């Protein structure tokens, strides 16, 4: 067997890794020196970026330019008429003038802003409330001893194995019975009990020693105070990860809102997008407006991701590998 000498660089990387406890990026599978070997990767990157590029650029093209064959790769001049066209006049039709995104929906108060508000309001409500009730339940399940605890926890875990579409139709009928169709209640309330959040937080809490909590108990602290003052701060990293997941997931939620929305003014952004597209499906001139709406829908989650990237990636790794 031939012993292979480590290169200086490999040795250095290995030493550094050992200092950090041994777990780290494998130093041996280094990037190939041949740059051409990485070229497929860059080609793929172009494929990844292309849809975003197209969304952005075509939302700033004129109706005339959108109709050109072949399509222009880069806008000849950047115009904002797909968002707001100052030449638009509801009383008369003009060639190459489009009803900008924020000029549409004249019978809805605030027009397109209404959909943005719906999305933001629903999202914030769900994220806060679901984390609040979820963390309360998780604290009790993880740190209290009571009868029925095992059964409750098993039910919660077991429910995660059932695809959510199974409860879709009774959920719809239930919300209808409550008279909640086409209201924010239908958006928010059924979305609150999230089994995964409780499961994740219980896992996280079980790795936290009980001493802190018990010390507080002996000092006579009330249970809710313990939760609020001790458990919540301890849970912060896990809560941040769950907050990001919930916010992004709910923002992009489509099927449930599609079912409970009966009039256009209650649509969230994805549903509004689908309606917009169904209204002007084949017409290439309206693609610019559709892309403008798509862009507005996409930006918030991407922004949130950029702002919280570290927590996000750590959260995925945690929830996936534990």
């Amino acid at each position, binding site marked *: 067997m031939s012993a292979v000498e480590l290169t200086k660089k490999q040795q250095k990387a290995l030493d550094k890794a050992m200092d950090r406890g041994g777990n780290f990026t494998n130093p*041996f599978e280094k990037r190939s020196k041949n740059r051409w070997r990485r070229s497929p990767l860059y080609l793929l990157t172009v494929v990844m970026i292309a849809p975003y590029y197209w969304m952005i650029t075509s939302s700033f093209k004129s109706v005339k330019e959108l109709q050109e064959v072949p399509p222009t790769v880069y806008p000849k001049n950047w115009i904002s008429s797909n968002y707001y066209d100052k030449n638009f006049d509801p009383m008369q039709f003009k060639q190459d003038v489009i009803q900008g995104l924020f000029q549409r929906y004249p019978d809805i108060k605030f027009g397109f802003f209404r959909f943005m508000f719906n999305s933001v309001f629903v999202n914030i409500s769900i994220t806060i409330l679901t984390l609040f009730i979820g963390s309360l339940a998780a604290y009790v399940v993880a740190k209290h001893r009571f009868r029925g605890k095992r059964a409750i926890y098993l039910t919660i875990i077991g429910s995660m194995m059932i695809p959510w579409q199974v409860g879709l139709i009774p*959920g719809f009928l239930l919300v209808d019975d409550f008279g909640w169709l086409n209201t924010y209640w239908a958006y928010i309330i059924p979305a609150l009990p999230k089994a995964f959040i409780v499961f994740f937080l219980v896992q996280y809490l079980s790795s936290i020693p009980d001493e802190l909590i018990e010390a507080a108990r002996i000092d006579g602290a009330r249970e809710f105070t313990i939760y609020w003052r001790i458990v919540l701060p301890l849970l912060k990293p896990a809560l941040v990860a769950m907050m990001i997941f919930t916010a992004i997931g709910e923002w992009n939620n489509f099927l449930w809102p599609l079912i409970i929305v009966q009039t256009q003014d209650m649509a969230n952004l994805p549903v509004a997008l689908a309606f917009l597209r169904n209204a002007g499906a084949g017409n290439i001139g309206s693609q610019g407006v559709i892309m403008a709406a798509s862009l507005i829908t996409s930006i918030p989650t991407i922004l949130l991701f950029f702002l919280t990237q570290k927590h996000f990636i750590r959260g995925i790794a945690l929830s996936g590998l534990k």
Partner: protein
Amino acid sequence: MSSPMFADSKKYAPSKRTGFRKFSEAGLSTYLMLSPFALLFIVFAVYPVLASLRLSFMRYNAICNPDQSPCGSVGFGNYQYLIMDDSRFHKALLNTTLYVIGSVIMGMIASLTLALALQEDTRSNRVLRVIFFLPSVTSGIAIVLVWGWVFRGDDIGLLNALFNFVGLPTVEWLATPSLAIPILIFMAMWGGAGFGMVLFLAGLNSIPAMYYEAAVIDGAGPRERFRYITLPLLRPVMVYVGITGTIGAFQIFEGVYLLFPTSVGSIGGFKDMALMIVPYLYDMGFNKFRLGYASAIAWILFGIIFAISMINLKLTRSLEDLR
């Protein structure tokens, strides 16, 4: 679990347990804190599942007019019809199976390749990782709308423009039955490879470097190191990515809903070429209001997903026992 302090403290002395203390050391507060989640969970998670099971054995349409649209028990009728006679459902099942197999296998290969290629912690790799991950946080509807433009059948469609540019003929992408599933698989890979990549990266980073060191000293080349260290140690991640990917793929909806409508206001595209389970469920439930029938579809979906998860787990267990 229980520390002696808890039991010794006067407040929770076992002999004095009355009221809610009989059930919980912390008394009523346990149930007060659990109840918001528990109530909502029972009403909006447990009840719908049970009700859906009941509905799946019924003919039910929310109107229940005894003359025109009666409701009532049909026993296993819905399931029997779905499995034996419903050719649209068979088509949906076949399409979904092909789509799941294609998207999970190819998605897994793509994720692992990306993770290996972007493993090293350099600045350019960090940027590339973010780019590949972006679709996971982008609204599916927004992206599907762009794909709709890419795959347009006329000359304004981007892919056709590209085809024309290099001298190839225009293709009716979304109206060609043999292309529907491959297009959906491509979209799934574009959208999901980055997520799998992150999981594989986490898996790769948790492999202790000394294994590689030992292998290098024993004279193992890059290929052997991959085959005998990386791959076996990544198996748990692969199982996880495989199971979650399969479950997710079975639930595909948005792409079919937006890209493959039919002229009669139903879903699935020309000759149901892209019809899948959840779109069919939606079509039956919310276009045709056959709610019992749609519930039966949902339970078949659950059965399939459950069976696959179990087989997958059993398979990996027995593989581990072999070693």
